[in-house]
Structures are given as structure tokens and as C-alpha cells.
């Protein structure tokens, strides 16, 4: 596969996308698991399908439409949840279904043959273009910068939100920022594993890392490494076995996580429940 990466532009793009995707997975996966926002992330990911459909309908890059829908969904769910309008699981499921319905509707409204949207549903890392890559790079840098810049605030916010509020930390702003970061992460990962499989890559690396370390910074670094391992491993499997790359990455991630869990159990360890 190394030879292919050195030879073919599309393989170079895929490798870079995998690397950038791993970075956001490592950072955001840990936060999402600690903040118990896995289902929220799933809801935001699926809502982005509406944006993909809108992108096709308007003739713009579907990934930009996905970005718009993801951010709007993240902000919408966040605001409604904070105002206690309805239970968060109800809101998530409604946004989830609404986004998918919008996507189906927009694509049905197109004239002529419908486009092949499987690349967005199940990922197609091998078809990542230079433009996609540049967009993904910008989003990845933004996620990393926000995480690093506000590290002290994130630490207090994730451990004890009420205490953070009593200290005057702007938890509302952090909460909104977190929602937007989840939306951004989803968009980055759509091209790697697709809307439907995004949850696995968001959770498996961070959960695997949680089995082996109890320090936040180490966990993030380890999750980035593990995610890169899963992405490149899946890419290699996809290359060797000629199977869909997104599915290969996710299957490898889930298998490795389960194996790690088993190993930790067999060694008599007590994995953290977060993992």
C-alpha cells in the first residue's frame, strides 16, 4: 500500500484525510464520550444528510451543505436542550429523522437520474479531492486550536459543569462551542467513513484509549494514534481485499476495541466504564 500511496494522488489524499480525521477523532471522541454526547453526535451526523441533498439540488459541493446542516442541527439541538423544551433524546431523534427526510426529498426534487450518494452515506476516502482535503484541513486545525486554546476550561467543564459555572466559567459558550465542534468533526469524518458509520470512528478510538490510560492528555494522544491505526489499517484492508474503505475502517475499529476490552478483562484489569 505504501507504494500506492507514493504513486497515486488519490491514495495520498486518502492517507492525508485519514490522518486529519484521526486528529479530530482523538480530540472530539474523548470529549464526546466523557460528556455522554454519543447519540447527540449520531443525530447531528444523520441530520447532515439533508445538507448533502441540498448541495446536490443547488449544484454546490454537498460537503458544504452537510457542514451547514450539521452546524444548524448542533446549534438547534443545543438551544432547545438548554431551554428544556423537550427531552434531549426526543429532540435528537427528531432532528435525525428530519435531516434524513430532507436529504431524500431534496434528491427526489432533482431532475434526471439521482446522484450516487453512497459516498456520503458510507464514506469514500479514496475519492477525497484536493478541495475536500483543504476543507478538512481547515476544520481539523480549527478543532485542534479550540481544544488547545481552551484546555483549562474544557477540563473543568467536562469534570464538573456546575462548579465551572459557580467559578464564572462561561459554560453556555463552551456548550455551544462543543456542539459546533461536534458538527465540524462529523463533516470531517463524512468523507472518511460516511454519515452512517461516523459514530464508530468517533467512539471506538477514544474508548480503546480509555482502556489503557487514565490521564486526559495521554488519552487524547493515544486516541489520535489508535484512530490513525484503524484508519490506515482499514485502508490497507480495503486496498488488499478490494472492499469498501469506510466499512473496512469501521469493522477494524470495532474488532480492535472488542479485542482490547477482552485483553484488559483477561489481564484482570477493570476497564473504566467510560470505555
Amino acid at each position: 500500500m505504501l507504494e500506492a500511496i507514493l504513486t497515486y494522488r488519490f491514495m495520498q489524499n486518502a492517507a492525508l484525510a485519514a490522518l486529519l480525521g484521526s486528529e479530530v477523532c482523538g480530540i472530539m471522541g474523548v470529549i464526546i464520550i466523557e460528556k455522554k454526547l454519543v447519540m447527540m453526535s449520531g443525530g447531528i451526523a444523520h441530520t447532515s444528510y439533508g445538507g448533502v441533498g441540498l448541495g446536490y439540488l443547488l449544484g454546490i459541493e454537498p460537503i458544504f451543505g452537510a457542514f451547514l446542516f450539521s452546524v444548524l442541527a448542533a446549534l438547534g439541538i443545543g438551544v432547545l436542550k438548554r431551554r428544556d423544551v423537550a427531552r434531549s433524546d426526543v429532540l435528537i431523534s427528531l432532528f435525525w429523522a428530519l435531516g434524513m427526510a430532507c436529504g431524500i426529498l431534496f434528491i427526489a426534487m432533482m431532475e434526471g437520474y439521482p446522484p450516487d450518494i453512497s459516498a456520503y452515506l458510507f464514506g469514500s476516502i479514496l475519492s477525497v479531492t484536493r478541495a475536500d482535503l483543504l476543507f478538512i484541513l481547515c476544520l481539523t486545525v480549527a478543532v485542534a486550536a479550540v481544544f488547545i486554546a481552551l484546555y483549562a476550561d474544557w477540563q473543568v467543564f467536562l469534570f464538573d459543569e456546575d462548579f465551572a459555572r459557580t467559578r464564572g466559567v462561561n459554560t453556555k459558550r463552551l456548550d455551544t462551542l462543543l456542539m459546533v465542534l461536534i458538527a465540524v468533526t462529523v463533516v470531517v469524518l463524512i468523507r472518511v467513513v460516511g454519515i452512517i458509520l461516523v459514530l464508530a470512528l468517533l467512539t471506538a478510538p477514544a474508548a480503546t484509549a480509555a482502556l489503557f490510560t487514565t490521564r486526559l492528555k495521554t488519552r487524547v494522544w493515544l486516541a489520535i494514534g489508535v484512530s490513525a491505526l484503524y484508519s490506515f489499517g482499514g485502508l490497507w484492508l480495503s486496498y488488499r481485499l478490494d472492499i469498501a474503505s469506510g466499512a473496512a475502517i469501521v469493522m477494524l475499529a470495532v474488532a480492535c476495541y472488542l479485542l482490547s476490552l477482552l485483553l484488559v478483562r483477561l489481564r484482570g484489569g477493570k476497564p473504566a466504564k467510560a470505555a
Partner: protein
Amino acid sequence: MEGGATAPAALRVHHVSIHYGQTSAIADVCLDVRQGAYLGLIGPNGGGKTTLLNGILGLIPLTSGTVEIFGQTPQAARGLVGYVPQHTTLNRRFPITVAEAVLAGRIPPGTRPFFRYTTEDRDAARQVIRRLGLERLARRQASQLSGGEFQKMLLARALVSQPKLLLLDEPTANVDAPSRVSIFELLQTLRQDMTILLVSHDLLDIVTRVDSIACINRTLLYQGEPALDADRMEQVFGSRVGLQLPGQPTGRPPKTARQEGVPCWRQF
């Protein structure tokens, strides 16, 4: 430092009502806590103790009324207040060391990009860790602590900002007996330097340790000496529970109460 009747007010809760939607949690609560006081806030589950505490802290909006802390709004007086939350409200499994958690008590208000704790912050954290006897646990993960150790860590986090008013919400819930004694001994030493408001469902903790009590069940029912007769207990808790001192005829007091030789309570 005693909270005498002439001491200026540390905390003034003035006709405070808090509603959750259409449901009233507390109504028209008035409470004055003098500087140097050690006050126990008691009441039944769902009686509004934690709601009142959250209102005092500015965590939830007041439907009506005002709260003053040293003459200022809760937001303005933030630096003067230390808060020990119920252990159930935080992420107990979060990957953070004791030293990091205590240091977090020095986080500044707002959101400050690239904020780093100063040497002064770290020295303050080290001092309070030493004061509470947590040195050997400083590098340990918070998730690996026992209930008592965890509460001490939360207490250290509250104290690291050198508050003048310390608010504790059920600090001895899910804590074993030796740790409970240790925590109350700590509070006893702390009261020399600050005003303490302690929320607890444990009547023994309240009546034997604090200077005064406030009973709340949707509204303030009593504030004064830590002595509760059966009638008042019925008024607060809705059942005839009374307090008796050792030497007085009792029913069958709890084993812990007999062992510690402290006032005990019994169900009539």
C-alpha cells in the same frame, strides 16, 4: 469567629421563590446568615435544599426575590464563595488527578484562551492539599479515590480560592463513618476563617456540629438553635421524628449514634 447576632450578614436570602416551569420548588424563603456562622440547612428530600443552594450560587434563576452575598449579587461575589457539590452531579470517572482537580478551583471567570495556571495558583493548591492531608493522593486519579477522599478533594478545590463563604451540599453522603468524622473535624477548623452553610439530610450531623439550623420544606419553616422537638420535625419532615440527648429516655437509637455517644433521633 462566631456568627453572633450583631455580626454583619454574610448571606441574605430575601423572599426568594424558584419555579421549575409551572412547578414551585421553593416559595418566599428568607434567610440571614451572619459572618462566622456555621449553619445547617435541613429538610426532607425534594424540600428545596439543593434548589435554594443553586439559587444562592446563581446556578438557577430566581423567580422572585434577591440573594446578597457580603452585600453583592451572587455573580459579583463569586470569588468569595467556595462550593462543594453533591458527588452525584459531577463526572466521577473523568480522567483528572487530585492535584489537577484542586487546581481547577483557581480557574478564572469567563473563557480565557491559552490560560495557564500561575505559580501562585499552584502554590495555593499545594498548600490546601497539604492542609487537608491529601499529599499522598495528589497524583492519583480522582476516579480511584474512596468516597471520603473524593469529598476531601472537592473540599480542597472549594478552599483553594480562599473563600469567605463555604457552601456544602451533602458533603457526607456516601461516605464511611471515619471519613465523615474527619470531614466534620476539618469543617470545625475551617469555621475559624469563614462562614459555613452545610446542607445535609443527616440530622445527627446537623444538630451536633453546627451553631444553628434552618429547616426548609418548600419554604423556610425554622431558623435558630439546633434543637428540634417532635412537633417541629413533623412540620418539616411530615413525620414525628424527634431529637433526644443521651440520658433522656429513648427508643432504639441507631447503632452509630450509640457508639459515638452523640445525640440521637428516633421514630415515634
